[in-house]
């Protein structure tokens, strides 16, 4: 901030000034209260389930509305496995897009292609779900999964990941749709981060005869690594809580399948699907709210780490 001019101190602050500052500060506090209210309300809502099952809620794989027994293991497993698989697919593609947009693309193409990638992020998640359900699921079931099962299903050690009938739906398909959804988020963050590298650094490397890739690998990535990881975590945060896209394609079964093509569920998809059949005040609804609380805790940790990393890298 530049030096401010010392104004003659007014005898009293205008009443409007005080009111406006109080209003703005109150709005700021409201945001904090909002976060607190979300955590507390989900926790209180889930309390009957935590009371009934205790720690067992976190270690039980049952989800049996008839017996009134509910456990969180399967949806937590599904949430984490789909998100990680999605990141494995999305990060290389997002990196390629960001690299292309910052270093390789002709200048006149950067803006339109960058905008198109951002538009991909703007498509509502329900559209991804529908598109996945009607287009990707049949395609996976007819072409991709049978081939992969044929090729990889008999391999030792990793073969079990690729066995089972090719339904088209399942963990792998859900991860694929999630990957398409988070690619633009990660790519846009990486692009912004790559642009923060001072040109002098890159020019020095080019001056020594480095190729574009060598500049990327030896200058840009080390310089931005903290923020890049932050951007990936941001994508992970998105993937963990995505609901509609996953609900359509994951197959919705409450058991842990060893095959990637097997059905499963995630916290968000289970909540979306079971909620209409959960009467107010029931133990099932409390279990769903408890799952929501767990999802919030997981996402909060991931997003908080992401923000800290991004801020440490002085971006966003």
């Amino acid at each position, binding site marked *: 901030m530049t030096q401010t001019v010392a104004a003659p101190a007014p005898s009293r602050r205008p009443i409007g000034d005080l009111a406006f500052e109080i209003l*703005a500060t109150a709005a700021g506090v409201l945001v904090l209260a909002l976060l607190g209210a979300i955590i507390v309300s989900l926790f209180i809502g889930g309390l009957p389930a935590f009371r009934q099952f205790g720690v067992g809620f976190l270690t039980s794989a049952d989800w049996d509305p008839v017996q009134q027994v509910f456990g969180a293991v399967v949806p937590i497993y599904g949430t984490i496995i789909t998100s990680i698989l999605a990141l494995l697919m999305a990060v290389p593609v997002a990196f390629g*897009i960001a690299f292309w947009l910052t270093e390789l693309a002709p200048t006149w193409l950067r803006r339109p292609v960058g905008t198109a990638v951002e538009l991909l992020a703007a498509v509502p998640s329900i559209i991804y779900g529908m598109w996945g359900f009607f287009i990707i699921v049949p395609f996976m079931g007819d072409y991709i999964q049978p081939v992969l099962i044929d090729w990889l299903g008999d391999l030792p050690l990793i073969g079990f990941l690729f066995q089972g009938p090719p339904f088209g739906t399942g963990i792998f398909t859900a991860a694929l749709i999630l990957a398409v959804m988070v690619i633009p988020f990660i790519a846009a963050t990486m692009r912004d981060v790559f642009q923060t590298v001072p040109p002098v650094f890159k020019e020095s490397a080019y001056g020594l005869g480095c190729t574009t890739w060598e500049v990327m690998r030896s200058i840009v990535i080390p310089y931005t690594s903290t923020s890049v990881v932050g951007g990936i975590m941001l994508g992970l945060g998105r993937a963990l*809580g995505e609901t509609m896209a996953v609900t359509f394609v994951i197959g919705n079964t409450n058991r842990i399948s060893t095959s990637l093509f097997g059905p499963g569920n995630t916290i968000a998809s289970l909540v979306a699907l079971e909620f209409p059949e959960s009467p107010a005040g029931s133990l099932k609804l409390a279990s769903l709210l408890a799952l929501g609380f767990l999802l919030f805790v997981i996402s909060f940790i991931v997003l908080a780490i992401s923000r800290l990393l991004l801020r440490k890298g002085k971006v966003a």
Partner: protein
Amino acid sequence: MSATLSHRGPARDAVVANALSRRRQRVNFLVEALCLLATFVGLAFLALILATLLYLGFSGLSASVFTTITKPPGSHGGLLNAIIGSLIQTALGTAIGTPIGLLVGTYLSEYARGSLLGEAVRFVSDVLLSAPSILIGLFVYTVMVSPFGGFSGWAGAVALAVIVIPIVVRTTEDMLRLIPVALREAAVALGAPKWKSIVFICYRAALDGIATGVLLAIARIAGETAPLLFTSLGNLNWSLSLTQPMSSLPVTIYQYAGSAFDDWVQLAWVGALLITFGVLALNVLARIVLRPRT
């Protein structure tokens, strides 16, 4: 890179140097090609989604979609109540969320520089920006729907407003920070109190950016489904009452797409087409608004 130059230097080691150079060029070419491929993949997904929507949705588009409400399968219903319901809830959500977001952004940029409370508010707002929207729906369910006897349009609007706030906060703060100090000082020198310099000088100077934030927020909530499932629920009858369950386009798409009736699925595609192109148009508009006028 296993081929290395010896200490004698490149001039005496021409063969090794050439091999190394070729290898480096090859690696570089390969990476560049893969990056181009990655960009193509990304763009192909966008093109594929839009093409699918046009192909499957356009054929079902007719005037009756906009003039008829949702009806049972086989009786030629439309989407009128869903469209109106979405418009009402999106407008209300924006109307509730924008002033709050604007004030929070103002607080962060004008009053809270360097303060601990400001840091906390900024951090929490950024976390809320990416928080799973389904949880916001569950939250509003526990505080509005379950204690006050039922699903309602108001609950839907409040859930959407919670999503709007952090988006508006982020753009408002960023834009206000770009306003030069000299402009504020000029206002102070003329004797304007701080609030007047903020409202009449800073807001005006940052109007483009703030408008962009609001447009992006509208685009975001217009397509939100998960938070509405637990709040406004959806309604297949004609109802404009905000205290009753209210229909919305995304929730109707969700119900119709998962149904077993061909005409409902067809209508779901029409709805998907409308909402996607509406949302994308808002995004493009937001970028045009923000484009520097030089």
